């Protein structure tokens, strides 16, 4: 069934197709339509789930974690301030190996109050042990929620499905919504290896001495390292069933590129337009959109980027006192590779919802191609100084 829906509703549809059983969520602009549609889905019983209308995001995540420990499939959605409020519990979900799936709408952090997009909210949570997927279309949002349940539950690691405020959350696109039974064939019911029940009483998350804690974290990292292959495998399987491949990255015209942009989110979509226009102007550009940011797709990045003479990383975020986060990560992925390491340029752009246009990419290409190597650590595109 094809439907024209907004990005937020793509999250709700993903949760319904995934048969989420417990939802606990709290409204925040620009996420509200996610919970509104889910409330309706629960009320009209198209989704058989308990929706706990909690009094905060903090309680939302706490309730999801506990429901997950009971063995239920759980979903929530939030944005910016709400995500920051959850911070302690993000560690709890991954540390406790509770495969909660959460939608996050990328919104700039206050102050000053901003409801527009940038990635500092979710990237501030990069070390909490969550898988992070950055989406660039409503179709991808919906499909990824379903895939995220599958990946998360297989490895018992929570996932965040991320989309840009307004640029995607409130943008209407055609989305192909698959049949429920076909999705059921792809995503089996959640059967955790252990769950909390009086018939087999255990204490979950109790006092853990240095003798054991270290190994718990080692195991989490080892399972994180399995995510790329699992995303590949489940993404191919999804393609077989539904005709849409869900991978770690999307490379666009990178094969013969002299300059490759590294992008994420909706900027990764705009980048393709920029790349096409640059090619019309005779500049061989390409775009590597990083969809899976945690775990970082090292293999893909190392395979694709060295094809070009130069790399320009586009960050809609800033790690104050360091660089853009994707820039840091790309440089670290290429570090130590003497032969096939193109110079990497870092651009900060689009903070607080400032538009990123195809022209922005043309400008970045011009600046990147004009120099042998970056002369400043990061370049702020269009900043009023």
């Amino acid at each position, binding site marked *: 069934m094809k439907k024209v829906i907004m990005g937020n509703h793509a999250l709700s549809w993903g949760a319904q197709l995934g048969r989420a059983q417990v939802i606990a969520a709290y409204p925040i602009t620009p996420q509200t339509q996610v919970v509104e549609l889910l409330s309706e889905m629960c009320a009209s019983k198209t989704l058989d789930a308990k929706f706990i209308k909690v009094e905060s995001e903090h309680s939302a995540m706490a309730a999801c974690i506990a429901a997950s420990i009971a063995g239920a499939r759980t979903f929530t959605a939030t944005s910016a301030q709400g995500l920051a409020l959850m911070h302690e519990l993000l560690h709890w979900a991954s540390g406790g190996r509770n495969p909660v799936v959460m939608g996050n709408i990328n919104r700039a952090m206050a102050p000053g109050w901003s409801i527009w997009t940038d990635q500092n909210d979710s990237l501030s949570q990069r070390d909490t042990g969550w898988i992070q997927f950055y989406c660039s279309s409503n179709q991808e949002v919906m499909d990824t929620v379903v895939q995220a349940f599958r990946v998360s539950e297989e490895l018992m690691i929570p996932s965040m499905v991320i989309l840009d405020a307004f640029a995607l959350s409130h943008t209407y696109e055609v989305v192909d919504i698959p049949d429920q039974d076909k999705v059921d064939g792809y995503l089996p019911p959640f059967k955790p290896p252990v769950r909390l029940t009086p018939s087999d009483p255990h204490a979950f998350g109790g*006092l853990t001495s240095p003798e054991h804690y270290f190994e718990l974290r080692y195991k989490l990292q080892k399972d994180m390292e399995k995510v790329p292959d699992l995303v590949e495998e489940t993404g191919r399987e999804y393609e077989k069933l539904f005709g849409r491949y869900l991978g770690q990255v999307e490379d666009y015209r990178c094969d013969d590129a002299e300059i490759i942009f590294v992008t994420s989110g909706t900027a990764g979509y705009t980048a393709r337009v920029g790349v096409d226009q640059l090619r019309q102007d005779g500049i061989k550009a390409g775009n590597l959109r990083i969809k899976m940011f945690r775990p970082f797709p090292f293999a893909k990045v190392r395979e694709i980027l060295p094809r070009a003479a130069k790399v320009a990383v586009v960050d809609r975020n800033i790690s104050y006192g360091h660089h853009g986060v994707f820039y840091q990560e790309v440089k670290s992925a290429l570090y130590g590779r003497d032969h096939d390491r193109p110079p990497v340029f870092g651009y900060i752009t689009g903070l607080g919802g400032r538009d990123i246009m195809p022209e922005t990419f043309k400008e970045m290409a011009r600046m990147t191609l004009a120099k042998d190597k970056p002369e400043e650590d990061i370049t702020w595109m269009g900043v009023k100084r």
Partner: protein
Amino acid sequence: MKKEKTMKLSLPTDELMSSGHLACQGCAATLAMRYVLKALGQKTALCIPACCWSVIDGPFPYSSLDVPIFHCAFETAASSASGLKAGLEMVGDTETTVVAWAGDGGTFDIGIQALSGAAERNDDIIYICYDNEAYMNTGIQRSSATPLGAWTTTTPVKHFKNRPKKDIDAIMAAHRIPYQATANTSYPEDLYKKAKKAKDIKGTRFLHIYAPCPTGWKSRPEDSIKLGRMVVQNCIFPLYEVEDGEKYTLNIKPREKKPINDYFRLQGRFRHLKDEDLKLIQEEVDRNWERLLKKVEIGGQQP
């Protein structure tokens, strides 16, 4: 024929808590758990936030309880319990009693928002606060449950607690939850009865259990039971129930209301108080007691 004398036990002998736990001597918080589990039975699941009880239970991979425990974040006892209940129901377990088991800090202070949320939604959980009147896990710091006049490590004797204990029971009554009660480990039958009653009611139920803590109160371990009886007899911590936020039932009305002095003198945390301080505190206790009697008069029953 010789007539055989039999002792009638007032509490079941089944134990869901074993020895080997990590509590201090004379810790009433452990008694509270033991009695409550006798009433709730094995089909119980606990959400325990950071508090003494997250240590008392024992370190991984041990547990001193025969019921499952989710050790949750400090401020999430109620929200975790709500989620656990929903999760269990969605996997087909509608029978298990889900309990949030938190200290006074996790209840009166950092967890009050989640508790208020769950109570307003009337989520089907029992919230139990064992009240040792300070943050004991972290080394005896004041909480909003710490009584007027008390020493703690953050209210040193030169600057002892100068505000009265927060009336959490009135706050919970304002949520119009179906059942709430105060209880005390020195009155185990009463505590048992209340936990049992709570078990059979649907919706949010709240038990506030007074739990002497020798370590934090600088009292003798052997005085924990005595202190629990005194605090009812002097009306500092009356035993009562509230249904739907309105119907008050006073469970014990002392024939003669005892002065507070003896109770205060048994605890090092009050040692610095002068007679005139105690007089002011007595006035505060009297006011609270009169207020409670009025509530009972308006919407309830006297014993």
